[in-house]
């Protein structure tokens, strides 16, 4: 009896602590479309007259934050232009209004331009994401009107770059030079992506080569050089390698493979979080909308890359399934208009992702960007089902981007 009791207890501990259920809510393309529309509406309907987004709203305290973050502004602008490029052309006026805010706040020095406001640090992240917004606008509209800004901003990133490919996080207004020894967790990847996108538009300006240098640094040196214990789950690097068309060395290939695996583990772990009872203690609370959205962006980049990247090709269906799972979690956690109706300011709640009663612009930024590719992944999975006469591998290899 004692042995039996030990086995039952052991099995219970195993189940609860190590293998809790991984729950991926069912989700359809229609659900994702509705979530995209709702998140985008949150952003554009709450734009200020100066083109700034609603930054942070606390529905419990019913307060709106007056602080602001420029990389997140540029990131939200990017997400809107990504949506425009995906066919949501009704978002263009709002996206352009957010772009005007960036264009009204350009800092020029030598031959380059950076997005910042007076008194703020000159950051690589905000300028890198401004480039992303501009390039996505160009793709969506075919309009080259801001090409000079893209070039100028990319030149800022190039002058920041160290020979190793590392990207100091700031340009110091006092010393008139890149800061020494300060590197951002996200800025490097944001800069890499911006350079990669600029290189797509201007292939002869050296921007692609600069992006490659930073990509090589991220893949081979960053963790040790910048003192990180673990490899960063860098969704911006995922974007960067996707925009570069994949890896170019064995080290980068290995990095991309490991990055995809990291995102897979994170997806499975997040799917075990319910915010309730014992699981909340053992697995912590559910991620922020921004966190789950960024995870989605990371997986999305790997999914898009799997169409061409040899080491990921066999994982395309698995990556699509992870995106389906993330999509289900995102849709389930988004505040619906019905749920928002009881909030003090329903227009600040509907379409948003909250945690501990607060939502922030990057909650909608990352989720919107992720949902756009999640939609594609759901269609791909549907096509695999339709091809059931073929093997899954054949259908996956033939799969659409």
């Amino acid at each position: 009896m004692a042995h039996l009791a030990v086995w039952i207890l052991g099995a219970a501990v195993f189940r609860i602590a190590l293998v809790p259920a991984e729950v991926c809510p069912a989700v359809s393309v229609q659900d994702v479309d509705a979530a995209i529309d709702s998140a985008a509406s949150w952003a554009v309907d709450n734009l200020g007259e100066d083109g700034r987004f609603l930054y942070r709203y606390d529905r419990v305290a019913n307060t709106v934050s007056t602080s602001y973050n420029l990389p997140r502004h540029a990131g939200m602008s990017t997400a809107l232009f990504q949506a425009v490029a995906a066919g949501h052309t009704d978002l263009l006026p709002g996206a352009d209004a957010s772009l005007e805010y960036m264009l009204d706040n350009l800092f020029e020095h030598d031959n380059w331009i950076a997005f910042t406001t007076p008194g703020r640090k000159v950051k690589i992240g905000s300028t890198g994401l401004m480039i992303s917004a501009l390039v996505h606008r160009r793709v969506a509209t075919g309009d080259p009107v801001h090409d000079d800004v893209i070039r100028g901003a990319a030149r800022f990133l190039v002058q920041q770059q160290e020979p190793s490919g590392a990207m100091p996080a700031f340009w110091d207004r006092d010393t008139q030079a890149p800061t020494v020894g300060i590197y951002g967790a996200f800025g490097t990847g944001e800069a890499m992506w911006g350079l990669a996108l600029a290189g797509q538009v201007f292939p002869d300006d050296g921007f692609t080569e600069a992006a490659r240098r930073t990509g090589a640094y991220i893949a081979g040196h960053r963790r040790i050089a910048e003192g990180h214990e673990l490899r960063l789950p860098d969704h911006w690097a995922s974007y960067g390698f996707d925009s570069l068309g994949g890896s170019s060395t064995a080290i980068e290939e290995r990095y991309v493979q490991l990055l995809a695996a990291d995102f897979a583990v994170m997806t499975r772990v997040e799917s075990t979080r319910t915010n309730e009872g014992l699981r909340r203690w053992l697995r912590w609370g559910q991620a922020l909308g921004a966190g789950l959205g960024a995870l989605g962006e990371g997986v999305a980049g790997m999914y898009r890359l799997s169409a061409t990247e040899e080491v990921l090709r066999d994982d395309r269906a698995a990556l699509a399934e992870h995106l389906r799972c993330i999509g289900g979690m995102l849709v389930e956690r988004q505040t619906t208009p019905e749920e928002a109706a009881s909030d003090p300011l329903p227009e600040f709640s509907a379409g948003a992702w909250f945690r501990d009663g607060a939502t922030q612009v990057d909650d909608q930024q990352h989720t919107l960007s992720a949902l756009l590719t999640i939609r594609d992944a759901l269609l791909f999975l549907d096509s695999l089902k339709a091809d059931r006469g073929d093997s899954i591998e054949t259908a996956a290899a033939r799969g659409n981007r």
Partner: protein
Amino acid sequence: MNGLAIVLLGVAVVNPARVRLLLGSRLAGVRSKAALGGSVLGVALAGALASVGSPLIDALDVAPETFRIASAMVITLTGLVVIAAPVGTPEKLRGAPLDVVIPVLYPLLAGPGAVLAWLSLGVDEGVWPTVGAAAVAGAATTLLAGLPLGRRSGWVAAARLLATVVVLLGVALVIDGVREV
């Protein structure tokens, strides 16, 4: 895992050297008979667990990779326990038919590490490779059961060596699981 690693895991997690140390009878015939019977049951159990592995994790809503990682963590832990304390109180064999079930099948052959190894191998490798590994482990257990203990320290060292293999393979399986997309 390649075939060699599967067999190695199967043998190491059963740890025939440790089983020999814990078979409490001085009669080689009694030990051999009990070990043979227990091993046959062990192979059958391994096959049964391997065949229910995939349906079980589906029912539990657990991804194969997650199960592999979790099982490997427990398997590694059992290996560490054996390294630290390779020998407990020998299990008495009465020379009765039921010896093959208790104590040979359980607790000597089918401990938590072995049970999880058979389930996990069943999910990842399929039933027949798992049965094959269990059969090799069973054969080794039966063979060693008939041998006299002689120098005990040698058997303890062998038990610890096999437990070390368990730890190394367990860690490798955790890494393998973490690196799966």
